């Protein structure tokens, strides 16, 4: 075996500024120098003495692992575990703070499909441009041009500016270029999360093919456990910026799912934000807390909270989001009872029953929302959420539609009235 990626002691430090967010404006700096010279000088002095209020955050800590030639390695972990940071370091987009990576061979990265596409250029022109950005030479692109166009399935529009493309066509073309990269090492981040189900399948198929090409080494970051278990023999699990496990994919996924479950059930209630304390938030069906919901029975969402002092314009309720993060609907206690907008101190238990056969089967997220309309929101930095999987009603004759975008959001819970006339 030949090691082609050797990661030694990689760490990445970020500074989090307490008062500022994002970039700094020069006018802010100037105004603080002029109007608050003392506190500005104090801040600078603290900075120099290393006692500033900046918080140091290690996105990655002491990462060590080697990848052998021809291996397909999955990288999984919760949001913020450092997966993307690791990939960005390996591609060279951002430098590490400590450590060293050694790489053997030509590297191409796919952090996004369609990077650098220009809307004014035609499909064909964008193939060349995107190819060059992804590290293909003009010759390589030329030799693959026909394959790329064919795979994308948009031959007819290849000489049309991409600004006239539908988003589906755009993604197809973009993935098609990416799929025909032939580096020794390919770094892939979550790109399969685009397009409709049919195209995703095609992409997975292509990934399968690519991974089987002898000698191709791939690092594949994804949230899609199906794809990971299908493509990767070994997988790295990142937890809070550290390698928690690096082993056979099955074992790693099992561990990941287990810790995810534990973390979800261990949400430490009560949680307090200002005047509001949430004591419990749960989803249940037939009196049992669960996140596997049968479609033919109603489900119940319950929240227990207490209020420390009288609040005005008060609203408490939920957002229901689908797997794409779209808010499907929302509901507040005050929707149907205006008197509760001015709420007395005390402890409350609110529950909502969502009827059976209402939502489409799928993955959902329920987010607890409490706020005083127009003045302040609660639990915004520390969201309280529960997810659940809604299964098809047993008697529902679901068509296996390939295209998720034409499924809609709701079920119409009645049957058609149909008669045969002649």
């Amino acid at each position, binding site marked *: 075996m030949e090691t082609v990626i050797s990661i030694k002691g990689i760490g990445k430090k970020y500074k989090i500024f307490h008062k500022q967010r994002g970039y700094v404006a020069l006018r802010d700096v100037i105004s603080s120098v002029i109007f608050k010279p003392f506190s500005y000088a104090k801040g600078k002095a603290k900075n120099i003495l290393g006692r500033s209020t900046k918080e140091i955050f290690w996105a990655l800590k002491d990462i060590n692992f080697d990848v052998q030639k021809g291996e397909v390695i999955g990288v999984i972990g919760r949001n913020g575990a450092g997966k993307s940071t690791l990939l960005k370091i390996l591609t060279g987009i951002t430098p590490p703070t400590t450590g060293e990576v050694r790489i053997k061979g030509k590297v191409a990265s796919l952090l996004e499909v369609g990077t650098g596409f220009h809307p*004014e250029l035609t499909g064909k022109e964008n193939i060349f441009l995107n190819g*060059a950005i992804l590290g293909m030479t003009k010759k390589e692109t030329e030799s693959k041009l026909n394959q790329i166009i064919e795979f994308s399935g948009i031959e007819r529009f290849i000489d049309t500016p991409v600004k006239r493309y539908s988003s589906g066509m755009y993604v197809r073309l973009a993935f098609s270029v990416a799929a025909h990269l032939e580096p020794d090492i390919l770094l892939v981040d979550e790109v399969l999360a685009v397009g409709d189900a049919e195209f995703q399948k095609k992409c997975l198929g292509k990934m399968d093919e690519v991974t089987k090409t002898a000698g191709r080494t791939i690092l594949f970051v994804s949230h899609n456990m199906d794809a990971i278990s299908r493509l990767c023999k070994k997988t790295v699990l990142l937890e809070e910026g550290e390698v928690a496990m690096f082993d056979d994919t099955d074992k790693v996924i099992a561990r990941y799912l287990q810790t995810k479950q534990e973390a979800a059930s261990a949400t430490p209630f009560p949680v307090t934000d200002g005047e509001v304390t949430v004591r419990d938030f749960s989803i249940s069906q037939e009196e049992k807390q669960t996140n596997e919901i049968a479609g033919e029975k109603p489900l119940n969402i319950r929240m227990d909270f207490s209020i420390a002092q009288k609040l005005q314009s008060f609203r408490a309720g939920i957002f229901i989001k689908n797997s794409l993060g779209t808010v499907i609907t929302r509901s507040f206690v005050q929707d149907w009872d205006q008197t509760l907008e001015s709420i007395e101190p005390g402890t409350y238990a609110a529950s909502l029953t969502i009827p059976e056969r209402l939502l489409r089967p799928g993955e959902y997220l329920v987010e607890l929302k409490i706020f005083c309309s127009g003045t302040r929101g609660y639990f915004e930095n520390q969201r309280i959420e529960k997810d659940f999987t809604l299964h098809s009603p047993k008697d529902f004759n679901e068509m296996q539609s390939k295209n998720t975008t034409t499924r809609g959001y709701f079920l119409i819970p009645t049957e058609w009235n149909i008669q045969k006339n002649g």
Partner: protein
Amino acid sequence: MSQLIATQKELHKPLTGWTKIIRPKKTFSLEDLRELWTYRELLYFFAWRDIKVKYKQTVIGIAWAIFQPSMAMVVFSFVFGKLANLPSDGTPYPIFVYSGLLLWQFFSSSLSDASTTLVSNASIVTKVYFPRLLLPIADSVTKLVDTFFASLVLIGLMIYYGYMPSLTGILIIPFLFLISFMAAEGAGLILSAINVKYRDVRYILPYFIQMLIFITPVIYPTSIAGAYEWVLKLNPMASVIESARAGLLGTALIDWQSLAVSATISGLLFIIGVIVFKKTERYFADVV
């Protein structure tokens, strides 16, 4: 902290065979130059993209490239030539100001593009690695094409007014553009570092760059300053424009000494710019 991406031929390190090493690093090195060279094709594609987009409708593209300096020439000729009666070293004012404007526009647009290039290409810069220096360089190449079309008007004016350039005057032109390029990139790259850090700077920059035209002999000759001419000539663009006029219009003899000074200043500016840019480049992907 910074990084080094060393693309090394295997010959140099036969024992290990690593082709790329990523580690924290602090300064600019010769490896960066070698890396630029390996990515030259991408430079071509960036320039090709911008030229293609700009000249997609060929006639409109060319017309636009000609329109801007021509319009400025007309306005300046009227305001500064006619009303203010500024001297023009004995040449007709329109051709005098146009020859200055050509170089000036190349310089100022390269400068302003270089200063915003990291921010305006953020979507690519945060997703793919390549030497970021390619972006401002590619912008300048695009500007050269604009200048080429705009210079057709100058040729027309020279024929109209009956000027014949000297051979030296023609041969010197590539060097004048090289000096302008280095000055524009140098200053632009320094400004880009400030721009990344303080994102509101880009709103001030256009005015700042516009003002620079008044300390450059575009609308007036340096001779106007009399004894203080040398102060004006510290601006590297001053000698560049004066030399172009000397070579093309025969306003004077080319002042080789001050041209050498401005080449040196531009070169230094360029080196400082590149070093500053390399430092910005390191943390740029983290602040966007």
